[in-house]
């Protein structure tokens, strides 16, 4: 806790206390572990992708329009989240909260479409146990969707704290860390979009 007072006034707010700075660096280490986690799911996806059994293929199930809507929602939410951090660096609490709420609404829209997609597939008879291909599809997409859902809950709690305590080196580093998490989920989605959806619609 003694490090808390070690303030560098020339850095952006979130880097000002040593604890805040180290928390950010530590979170990047966590993201390294998340990259490894998702890589195992992608590895399984590539290995099992062709095992469709008696079930339908990706080409038969995927809808280009739905995929584009989901991608644009998440991409835009990543952008608005970046704007929230930009506002934070201009020391504007209100701006941070407003842009973060927009981010969360877009994120919730993404989750809504993903749930719609899953429910639609189940109604068409495509479930977790249809084939190895669809098992890994639901596991990979579900893990990503779960991360987004956890992110929404986490950022809501952070915003409550931010509204109560205002921008301090401590709250700023927390908001910055949550933005890293959110952007990271978009990075994962870029690869899901490319490797799962686009390649699934090619063949």
């Amino acid at each position, binding site marked *: 806790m003694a490090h808390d007072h070690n303030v560098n006034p020339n850095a952006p707010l979130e*880097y000002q206390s040593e604890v805040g*700075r180290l928390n950010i660096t530590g979170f990047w280490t966590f993201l390294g572990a998340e990259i490894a986690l*998702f*890589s195992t799911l992608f590895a399984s996806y590539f290995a099992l992708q062709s095992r469709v059994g008696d079930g339908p293929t990706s080409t038969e199930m995927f809808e280009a329009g739905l995929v584009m809507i989901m991608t644009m929602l998440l*991409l835009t939410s990543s952008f608005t989240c970046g704007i929230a951090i930009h506002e934070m660096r201009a020391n504007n609490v209100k701006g941070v909260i407003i842009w973060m709420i927009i981010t969360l609404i877009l994120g919730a829209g993404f989750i809504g479409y993903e749930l719609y997609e899953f429910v639609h597939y189940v109604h068409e008879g495509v479930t977790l146990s249809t084939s190895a291909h669809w098992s890994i599809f639901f596991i990979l997409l579900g893990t990503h969707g779960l991360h987004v859902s956890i992110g929404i809950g986490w950022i809501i709690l952070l915003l409550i704290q931010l509204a109560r305590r205002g921008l301090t080196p401590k709250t700023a580093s927390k908001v910055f860390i949550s933005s890293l998490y959110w952007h990271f989920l978009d990075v994962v989605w870029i690869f899901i979009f490319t490797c799962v959806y686009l390649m699934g*619609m090619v063949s």
Partner: protein
Amino acid sequence: MSQQTKKGHFPWKHIIGFLISIALTLVAFATALWTDWSSSTIFIIILIFAVIQAALQLVMFMHMTEGEDGGLISGNTLFGFFIAIVIIVGTYWLMTSGHMHMGMSM
């Protein structure tokens, strides 16, 4: 408190990053759905677009290279991606070639 307040500073970096991301997404989409190239050609091309877009997010939105620990963070993240590539390519190679041999011996 904060000496680095940039009030009224327009977020150009974010907007440019966002526009490039949208462009890359659309070009990848068009490449995958509206060309009749072989699927491996398409895969290589859209994977390059994905890597560019991911790098853009990491550097422009996540400020990866910024701050005192920027070098450490970038090294850590690049190592993470290296591990990811080893796991994905290794698993794919092992599972596909291993399966072929199993099929032949039976």
